[in-house]
């Protein structure tokens, strides 16, 4: 202690310089960081302005202000409000149109869709039924997209309300107009399962999945329920594996499907493995799985459709060879 005492009141110059240097360095660092942060912020900052939907609303509002009695402008405004997630304003505009033209199908469908979005099922149902009531005997009822829309949403509402038989009728009416509507096939399949028609439900759900085989989990979940009712454990396992795949657990899905390729759900499992391979960009492997499926079940519509899509003729070995050549043209 004694040897340090003389230094206590008098610091060596180098120590003072060090202290100053630290202060300067920290100051430079802080100021530099602030300067860089400011430069970076203003360099990268962007002012996007109004979105497309906001612009559409503004334009439609201007149109209605300029011509308040123009129903097309009002319809555009209602649809713009709907797109902008302003259901109250959208309904007001649809009501204005319906005051002038009570049978305007566009306004009825638009308002019904807003009410459906607000979970007002009975309100929406009444409007959709009005559309079907006035259109079902129309000259072009067999190819009327607005009528098809009304039937589809009625099926959806009936299904939600547990009215299985009504939902089946409406979904079938919708599919009569648009047979490739996968959503309607799904609603039909779900309603059929609800009505105790599990076997028909499986057929409908398979149709839905034929059009949209990936990225849509609900049909596989419903398929699982249907197979459960039909007491088919391997098929239940297949549906569960496809739900795994759909929910991005691809490895797990593949493992489950691999175990099924020699049992009663073999064709489904092979198609599932093909779908997984195709989605992963392994086209050759996918084709191999699809070919196995079609060998086991030559009339399987999913296998036929999928191989055709890939440019493979699925029927004979000669056709397969031709198909393989075709696939190489597209670079697979």
């Amino acid at each position, binding site marked *: 202690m004694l040897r340090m005492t003389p230094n206590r009141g008098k610091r060596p110059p180098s120590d003072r310089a*060090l202290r100053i240097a630290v202060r300067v360095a920290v100051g*430079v660092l802080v100021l530099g960081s602030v300067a860089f942060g400011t*430069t970076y912020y203003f360099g990268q900052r962007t002012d*996007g302005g109004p979105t*497309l939907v906001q612009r559409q609303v503004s334009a439609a509002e201007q149109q209605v202000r300029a011509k308040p009695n123009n129903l097309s402008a009002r319809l555009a405004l209602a649809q713009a409000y709907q797109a902008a997630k302003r259901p109250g304003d959208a309904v007001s505009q649809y009501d204005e149109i319906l005051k002038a033209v009570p049978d305007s199908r566009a306004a009825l469908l638009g308002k019904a869709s807003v009410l459906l979005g607000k979970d007002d099922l009975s309100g929406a149902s009444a409007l959709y039924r009005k559309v079907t009531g006035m259109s079902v005997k129309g000259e072009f009822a067999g190819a009327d997209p607005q009528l098809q829309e009304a039937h589809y949403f009625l099926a959806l509402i009936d299904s939600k309300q547990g009215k299985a038989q009504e939902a089946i009728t409406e979904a079938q009416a919708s599919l009569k107009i648009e047979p490739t509507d996968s959503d309607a096939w799904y609603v039909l399949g779900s309603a059929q399962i609800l009505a105790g028609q599990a076997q028909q439900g499986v057929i409908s759900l398979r149709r839905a999945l034929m059009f949209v085989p990936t990225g849509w989990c609900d049909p596989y979940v419903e398929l699982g329920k249907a197979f459960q009712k039909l007491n088919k454990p391997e098929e239940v396992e297949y549906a569960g594996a496809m739900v795994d795949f759909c929910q991005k657990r691809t490895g797990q899905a593949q493992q489950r499907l691999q175990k099924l390729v020699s049992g009663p759900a073999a064709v489904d499992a092979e198609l599932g493995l093909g779908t997984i391979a195709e989605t992963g960009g392994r086209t050759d492997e996918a084709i191999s799985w699809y070919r196995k499926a079609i060998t086991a079940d030559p009339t399987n519509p999913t296998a036929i459709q999928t191989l055709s899509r890939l440019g493979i003729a699925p029927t004979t070995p000669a056709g397969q060879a031709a198909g393989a050549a075709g696939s190489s043209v*597209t*670079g697979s």
Partner: protein
Amino acid sequence: MAIEEIFTEPAVEQPEPQPEGRRRRIVVLSVAITLIALLVALTTWYLRTGKPLSQLPGLGQNGQPPHYLFSVYGVNKPLGVAVSPDGDRIYVSESTGDRVVKVFDRTGAAKGTLKPPADSGTNHAPVYIAVNPRTQDVYVSDRTTAAIYVYGRDGAYRRTFRPKGDLGAQWAPLGVAFDSYGRLYVTDVRSTGAHRLLVLTPDGALERSVGESAGLTFPNGVAVDSRGVVSVADSNNSRVLMFDRDGKPGGRLVSESGDTALGIPRGVAVDDSNRLYVVDLANHAVRIYKIADAVTGTPQYMASFGTEGTGDGAFEYPNGVAADSRARLYITDRENNRLQVWSY
């Protein structure tokens, strides 16, 4: 232990505060100097590149897709887009309305239009655009007049680019791009003869015709990377073909399914980080690939961005793409009548 000892001993053993404080200050000073050096390096890098921090060397190649920044409105069904290397001028071609090329600054503010000469008639359809890296001149292909119009950076019409010889009477130029030497690459969708890629010298002499035997069907966008490898969107064959600087076939991107599907590839661009961008019109998305190290290699898929829709960051039939040196991407969103700007 005596009470005196308890109070006196610790005072004797206490370390000297001055050397410890000195050591601490030296450590603080060293850390501060290191951080200042890093800050200087970072600032220099940023001022030189203008790129976001996510693109710092070593960070920007992790396969992450870019994010949406903003949109430029006021363009009618835009098709092609080009950007000056520094991102200060953005050029967008319109396929309806006035059918001109509109010019914007980096914030999206309108700066003017590029209009073909009056003696070229009134029926124009500007499609793809390229900026000559040597002169900053803007080259615009015109579908209806089968011409390439050249404008200065100031927007003034300069001339009509014509290939030498009788080539100009037969061609139908569509996609355009430059390499670093100022050579012009043009996809030719002529009605007589096979579709092809033309490589032209700056004065219009034909240096090479590429891809006639590759079965190109309506090749659209074209881009040249830093090694001179040319990527051509072979649109109606759902693929992108690569050719080396001698015109020999190299890698190819073919349509797979899912994220790697290529429905109708249209615009292509390469950025200075060797990322290849391909706009897929049919899937309303942009695919990103990492250019292979080998000249003949196939680019490796990295990521995709975009879905169909009208919201911010969604596309309705996107067509053209351009990249600037600030890691910004410009994509024409045709049916939404806007140009979208994305960044990392």
